[in-house]
């Protein structure tokens, strides 16, 4: 817990981190997965928790093992996903799907330690699948980015998907 509000990060930091988010989206859209992995910290955590629709006045206790997750990945698991995508055996991605990501509502906030920032953003993902069908997914993201050796690395991402029923048969894409 911080006892006093932190001053906003310098403009250069805000610009650099925002650019990193945009660059990340472009690398993923272009299937440059190695380039994307290079933007991740060694200790990265990448999570998407399940939600369930409850009444506001719901009286039930939280589930003993939490709500469940769709993604709870570390760097090794993310590399495994990338290996799978690059294996040449993913029939559902051949010919390639078209994916376009739009990142917006970026807020870069100071945090501790000094070389890290907390980042809120919104991701809109447009997928055009091999059979021509199109799906639109939106998600909110809360990240931690760390400045390391002159580059900003993603070290934590909590994804909140805005769909109580996934409008797609898989989530074979990075958010």
């Amino acid at each position, binding site marked *: 817990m911080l006892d006093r509000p932190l001053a906003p990060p310098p403009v250069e930091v805000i610009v650099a981190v925002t650019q990193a988010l945009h660059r990340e989206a472009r690398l993923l859209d272009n299937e440059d997965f190695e380039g994307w992995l290079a933007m991740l910290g060694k200790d990265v955590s990448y999570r*998407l928790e*399940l*939600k*369930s*629709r*409850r*009444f506001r006045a*719901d*009286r*039930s206790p939280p*589930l*003993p*093992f*939490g*709500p*469940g*997750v*769709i*993604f*709870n990945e570390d760097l090794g*698991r993310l590399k*495994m*996903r990338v*290996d*799978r*995508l690059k*294996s*040449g*055996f*993913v*029939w*559902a991605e051949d010919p390639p799907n078209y994916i376009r990501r739009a990142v917006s509502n970026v807020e870069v906030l100071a945090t501790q330690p000094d070389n890290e920032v907390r980042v809120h953003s919104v991701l809109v993902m447009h997928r055009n*699948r*091999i*059979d021509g*069908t199109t799906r639109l997914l939106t998600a909110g993201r809360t990240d931690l980015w760390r400045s390391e050796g002159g580059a900003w690395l993603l070290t934590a991402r909590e994804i909140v998907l805005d769909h*109580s*029923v*996934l*409008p*797609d*048969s*898989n*989530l*074979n894409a990075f958010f």
Partner: protein
Amino acid sequence: MRFERIGREPDYSRYMDLKEGWLDRRIFSDADIYEEELYRIFARSWLFVAHESQIPSSGDFLTTHMGEDAVIVARQPDGSIRVMLNSCPHRGNKVCFADAGNTRRFVCNYHGWAFDTAGDLKGMHEEYCYDAGDIDFKNHGLKNVAKVGNYKGLVFATFNSDAPSLEAWLGDFRWYLDMILDNEEGGTEFIGGCIKSVISANWKFGVENFIGDAYHAGWTHDSGTRSMNNGQPFPPIDMDNSYHASVNGHGWEFGTEGVGDLFLLGRPKVMDYYNKIRPKMEERLGEMRSKIFGSVASASIFPNVSFLPGISTFRQWQPKGPMQFELKTWVIVNKNMPDDIKEEVTKGVMQTFGPGGTFEMDDGENWENCTTVNRGVVTRHERLHYRCGIGRQIEHDTLPGIVYRGQYNDANQRGFYQRWLDMMTHDEFGKMPARPEPQLGNVAETRDLPGLFAL
């Protein structure tokens, strides 16, 4: 209860010849056939609605569907479970929009009619607008289903007052079900939430994939298997010691090596756990079942529930029109597992068979395109091939059901469509043939029966 549909009386037997081994594609795409399925299959079968662990306390509820009928499943103060239509008897509005929770009352958004968790009408907004005699509270509750049953934690319901008991409906298939529901003292529970996704495919493609289609795994899931297995492909199947078993449209396909599915889960601690309890499992279920559990296997309960024993994904294919279903998935674990093993299982399931899982991601599009291609009017009149292994039926001295040798087989799929045809054809349950005749007898507890030879 009988739900008559006026007008059509087609001969469904012309949509398949299971002795020859083919199906007509229209059963996967035709809107009239789909409507008829809702009447004849979903309004008449026992349908899975919940695991009892999802609603442990009085007032706990969840919402789901039986066919396309929205229902509420609620735990009562006396511990029993009620299942009722999620639709207000006043103007029909949907009453409960939450996925799950705990409540004392369900109050309709439209005019404020209020129901208790048994579905009884308890009051309404501005009650004075009704004069004496306008409304009979007793007969204006949420309509309860005809029967609710519980098999070792799985709660089923049916709209059909003529349905046989749940035990008879599951029949000898209970011998197989006990491998996932009763392989350890204490039974099972669902942990974590429910993942829902919508897939533009006919519901039967999901069921038939899990009931018998081991064949697709090595090809469809090649990338996933290799990425989890140091680049190695799916190992070849032992066709001599693996089987299909079908009981009244339910089916289980399995090897007997004991480790395949546990390996694919990708969590070594879970493998260790089962190896540790396996001697006890053998005492409990007999040698054969302790060898089957954990093997490469998949199963479905007629009409629309599937699971992978060993990988622990449990799922339901909810019909949403001829070319769409909603897939609901849960994680099922043994209640007496230590917490860290439960967490390992959950991780493994999400990493393999969650919507972002290394295996699950490959399946959906196949089913979608098997379905949507039938928009073509010429295409939809073509037959599909279901003849694999048609000559491999055997009599096995331990395994109940209609048994075929060799895990790569269409036998359970043929058994499923045979039951589909029986239900689409026969008006009365009593007239429907048993497939096969019950072999284990009318026993209450199939866990203690090692298999057929013991009888």
